[in-house]
């Protein structure tokens, strides 16, 4: 863990250390007991039987799921690449001194954040072809996700800008830079550097939101997991495997985010108060 909360308590003396040791041992016993009980019951119901897990030792099944993961990653990467600059644009717009620009940016951000992404996907699916616009499947997912995520990115970047010491902007203006130049040469680069961990964490949320792709028939991991479970009638095992894949994939992204965070802290850039994660909602697949 990268954070150190030792300022919250006095370093424990011998009695304190003993108490901590006792507390740790008791918690460990209780925890292991609960987990052990659960696993034992699970095995008792036959869910750990070899023949239920045997299908997952075969490469074609993993290939099927990993191709789904590929689709998920593709959609997430596209969305990230598109919504990052868009988000920066709207963040700067919301901080602008020009009132109409500020209003437009604020309106966009507030609406795009509260509108259910599912609705936007329906709009892409139903509304656009009505007017004869037909885009490839991946865009029917990426465009609504971009709209929603650019608003979230905008808020994260804006929080980063606001957390920067005001002296930076004042010094830049004092040196004769135009407000526009101060923003793009001094403020924005530092703000982006300080919120990079939050942005990477938002990527994790984005990866999970790509499960909306089932509505536009986009090949992604969660839907493939459902098709697989319909095929092999092994609901629990399939979903456990899919959960594992998500854990590994998103977990590594989160690990990257926390390493970035410790890096920025070490470089003395104050991270903003707003937390790394602004979860956007996910939607239900139905049969």
């Amino acid at each position, binding site marked *: 863990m990268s954070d150190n909360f030792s300022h919250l308590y006095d370093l424990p003396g011998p009695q304190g250390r003993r108490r901590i040791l006792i507390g740790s041992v008791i918690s460990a016993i209780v925890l292991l007991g609960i987990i052990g009980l659960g696993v034992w019951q699970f095995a008792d119901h036959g869910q750990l039987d070899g*023949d239920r897990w*045997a*299908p997952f030792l*075969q*490469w*074609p*099944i*993993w*290939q*099927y*799921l*990993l*191709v789904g*993961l*590929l689709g998920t*990653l593709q959609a997430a990467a596209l969305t990230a690449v598109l919504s990052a600059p868009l988000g920066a644009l709207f963040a700067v717009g919301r901080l602008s001194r020009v009132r109409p620009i500020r209003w437009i940016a604020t309106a966009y951000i507030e609406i795009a954040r509260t509108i259910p992404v599912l609705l936007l996907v*329906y709009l892409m*699916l*139903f509304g656009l*072809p*009505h007017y004869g616009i*037909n885009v490839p499947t991946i865009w029917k997912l990426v465009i609504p996700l971009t709209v929603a995520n650019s608003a979230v990115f905008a808020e994260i970047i804006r929080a980063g800008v606001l957390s920067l010491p005001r002296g930076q902007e004042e010094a830049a203006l004092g040196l004769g830079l135009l407000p526009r130049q101060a923003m793009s040469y001094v403020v924005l680069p530092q703000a982006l*550097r300080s919120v990079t961990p939050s942005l990477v964490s938002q990527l994790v949320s984005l990866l999970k939101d790509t499960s909306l792709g*089932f*509505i536009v*028939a986009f090949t992604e991991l969660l*839907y*493939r997991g*459902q*098709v*697989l*479970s*319909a*095929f*092999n*009638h*092994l*609901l*629990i095992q399939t979903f456990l495997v899919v959960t594992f894949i998500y854990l590994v*994939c998103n977990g*590594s992204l989160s*690990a*990257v985010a926390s*390493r*970035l965070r410790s*890096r920025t802290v070490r470089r003395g850039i104050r991270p903003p108060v707003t937390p790394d994660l602004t979860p956007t909602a996910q939607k*239900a*697949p*139905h*049969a």
Partner: protein
Amino acid sequence: MFTSTSNRWRAPLVAAVFTTVALTAAGCSSSGSTAVPGATSTAASGSSDALYKNAIVAKAADILPNSTMAAIKKRGKLIVAEALDAPLLSQQDPSNPDSVTGFDADLAKLLAIYIIGKPNVEIVPPASETREALLANGTVDVVFNTYTITTQRAAQVDFAGPYFESGLAVAVKSDNKNIKSIDDLAGKTVIVGANTPAVTAVPEKQPTAKIVSFGTDPEAVQALTQGRGDAYVQDLTLLASDAVSNKAIKVVGQPFTKEAYGIGLKHDDSDFKKFINSWLVKIQKNGTWGKVWKASLGTVVDSKIPTPPAIGSVPGS
């Protein structure tokens, strides 16, 4: 900003490289052929190939100029809205993702052969609330998705057929001796599939039954075996297939409704409707329909080939 040669990047970099290699291997390598438990018998797919070889193709005169069929023939493929996770009806084989087999899937391929000459089908799995819209805006040509014909739907889309008649039946846990049919379900908890006809049919027959709906069939079966409901009401053939692969449940009684499935197509496209209906009559007459049924739904039901329903026999078709 961050140099990639620094030590702290080594582990994530290795992980990234490994993941990319694995994903590329997954994406590029040819699919394996090892059998997976739960697969429908390979004998069935063998006979499907024989079906496609002898499938009828429309005469050039039938394909009217400027009609939907002509456009499909020109495009070279038929775009069908059908599921990928409906065993026996249209199920994708994960070890061979290009292969989608089942009653609906095979009929769609036969229709493609009829129009184009080759079974070129592009599948768009619909969420059930999107079927009418997908037809209306031309994203798909037909819907082959156990699409029940109702008058409300007929106001938005056209139905060719009906091409199959089924019914809702009741499944219970194998050791349940009390429930023998839908009539025993008064006041009980009944599991249904979320967007299936059972959602409305069960309350009609048993207003006091408590309805619990689940998104997919495997979930509903699991819920039944776990005791989250007393019975599971679903299409008879789906239940039969579940009972075959899961000894913990059994089907009781006879189907208590009649569900007529139709081929969904765009509203007011009467040329296409006539075209498909004439194709349906032809394959029913020459036994192809029966062969398709036998290769898919017939594998779990112990009866002879049923008579297909008469075209246009249901309001809305």
